[in-house]
């Protein structure tokens, strides 16, 4: 029972982090580690992501 709950909680957390884009930071850290160069600061990384969003259109429908 508790095991199932833990699995479900992990699933929800994974989903929300992926959906909201928070997990992109983990990807960045992992990729930098794999290539052996230091990652950006979190602040700098997020700033670049939000500035990129400035030019993209996220349409919202009716």
């Amino acid at each position, binding site marked *: 029972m508790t095991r199932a709950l833990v699995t479900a909680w992990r699933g929800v957390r994974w989903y929300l982090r992926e959906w909201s884009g928070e997990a992109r930071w983990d990807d960045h850290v992992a990729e930098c580690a*794999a290539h052996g160069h230091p990652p950006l600061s979190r602040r700098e990384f997020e700033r670049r992501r939000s500035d990129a969003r400035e030019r993209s259109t996220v349409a919202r429908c009716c």
Partner: protein
Amino acid sequence: MSTTATAEASGGSTGRRRPGLRSILVWGAVAAVGAVCWTVLAVARGESVSALWILFAALCSYAIAYRFYSRFIARRVLRVDDGRATPAERHSDGIDYDVTDRRVLFGHHFAAIAGAGPLVGPVLAAQMGYLPGTIWIIVGVIFAGAVQDMTVLFFSMRRNGKSLGQMVREEIGVVGGIAALIAVFAIMIIILAVLALIVVNALAESPWGVFSIALTIPIALFMGVYLRVLRPGRVLEATALGVVLLLAAVVGGGYVEGSGLGDALTLSKEWLVVALVVYGFVASVLPVWLLLTPRDYLSTFMKVGVIALLAVGLLLARPVLQADAVTDFAREGTGPVFAGSLFPFVFITIACGALSGFHALISSGTTPKMIAKESHVRLVGYGGMLMESFVAISALIAAVVIDQGLYFAMNAPLGATGGDPETAATFVQGLGFQTTAEDLAAAAAAVEEPLISRTGGAPTLAVGISTILSDAFGGSLAAFWYHFAIMFEALFILTAVDAGTRVGRFMLQDTVGNVWKRFGDLTWRPGNVIASAVVVALWGSILYIGVTDPLGGVNQLFPLFGIANQLLAAIALLLVTVLLIKHGRVRYARVPGIPLVWDLVVTMTASFQKVFSSDPAVGYFAQRNRYADARDAGEVLAPAQDPGQMDQVVFNSTLNGVLQAVFAVLVLVVAVHAAVVIARALRSRGAVPTTEEPAVPSQIVEPAGLFATAEEKRAMAEQRELAGSAR
């Protein structure tokens, strides 16, 4: 790594396999439950029918359609190929092109397509009874709406995520492309105006509503600063804080209403228009991280949360349907909510939730650039639209489980109800309902808002949600639930309005940029300001016209909105049909072809009636002539109250009629060009070249369906091992 092995492992074979016993039993049971629900809905008349029959008829139909029809479309019609790399894989840049988990992309896509449309349309269509709306929402989504979303997504994905307009220009021709571009822009303006009109009608004279909605702006600004400066990137944290603040704002509104601040926040419709226009302009020129992005997180979480809450509430409250299956208005076309008979106007009023052309703009553009595997168009495109249809069904249920006298008192224009409980009760008793003035006053007292002639659908839905949730969870929270529902609707309508203004601005800058280079530069500040101002002025003026319309803005503008949306769907389905024929799959052209023909018949009939009908309640020009003649004779016709309002009616009817005619002509231009392209392709027998990108083998292993099969799990584990040993 061998790519053919990958393709086999992840794509699944296309050959027929004998279904297992379990599969037969499960799907047999789903079909049986669905058939029972439909039968009950079909035969029950004049007895108390539970709303759950509608809910389960919908769910079973969706399940069967997804399992069988969408699979048929994926395998036979589109021939999705998981051995072929998607644009996300080929161009991966982590910004626009990004390989995204299918379930996560489903969430993104659903958040993008679902808005106020599926909530409002079914509420208005409820004047014809629950059955026409139920049938159209379910049958429409299965054979038209979901098919459109999925196929457009597929063809755009095969073309690196090109937009609908671009694809029409390249595959159908320049003239068709230009017509489509103008249609898309004009339709967007109408949609923004109508959405904003719904918000204005919901917030007018409601200090509680205005307070909670106004607070969403500082809450979003706070979240924006939080994410940019205080704790960069902690989206979930910031959103959780935002949701708590939002709920506090809804509760706080109740206190504000009774206080001295209440009067200051009691805004007329005209002032709300000014507020919305200023807001739309500012939101369009501010950096997105400050306002748009955080609002988007907030509104999406609210949207999904409320829909889930409503579904649970329906199961707990098990409300009984109050409306007739089919009302007299369906037969006679004299309904007070909107004029016109069942055919074609139910199919126009319920656009989103059954078939929405606007989705084609989302299915071509953002989503196709994020698809990991071709087979995912089924879950994201078809599945996402089924989910939106479910939202529409929930909204329909909310509108037909409230007292129907109250429903008509809320949705008929002011000219008909007279604006107070006594005159409104007389009006609805004239329609044959037993509702008394006391009943109407009691309903208004329960939610602490005046309810007579609160048109636009949002207040009615809020009353329905409030009724269902009060029944389900107990307590005397009707007023809280009402304002909670209003806040949630207004929140994501405003998100659609600011995002839409921005998209409109980009379209305008892009188009004008073709002749004036500098204007197309998105970083050029004056260009941004001018383009934003033009877009806001366009929808703002239509909004103002709607708000001040003596005949009631919603019943005048909503048909225009619905027809425009369905005409856009016609353009999208035309493109898909043309592409299937060009690819030499003439046999399967009927899959988009049948909904296309249906949609063209519906929209052209509706457009024809709106332009040429001699009935002033239906035809815009007949209405114009009636009021113009009376004005020239020096008379004033109700509901207009003075010669100035007579002029207004004449002007508005002319404008609406002209817009209506222009939309229809634009679509006919595209249709004629498409017919020529189809004829040429058919004559050449076999596939004709298209702008499809050449196939590149895929290196990614991903499950094809929602759940990974054992085979797919093995293949994924294998790939992880390979990647590990390579490192």
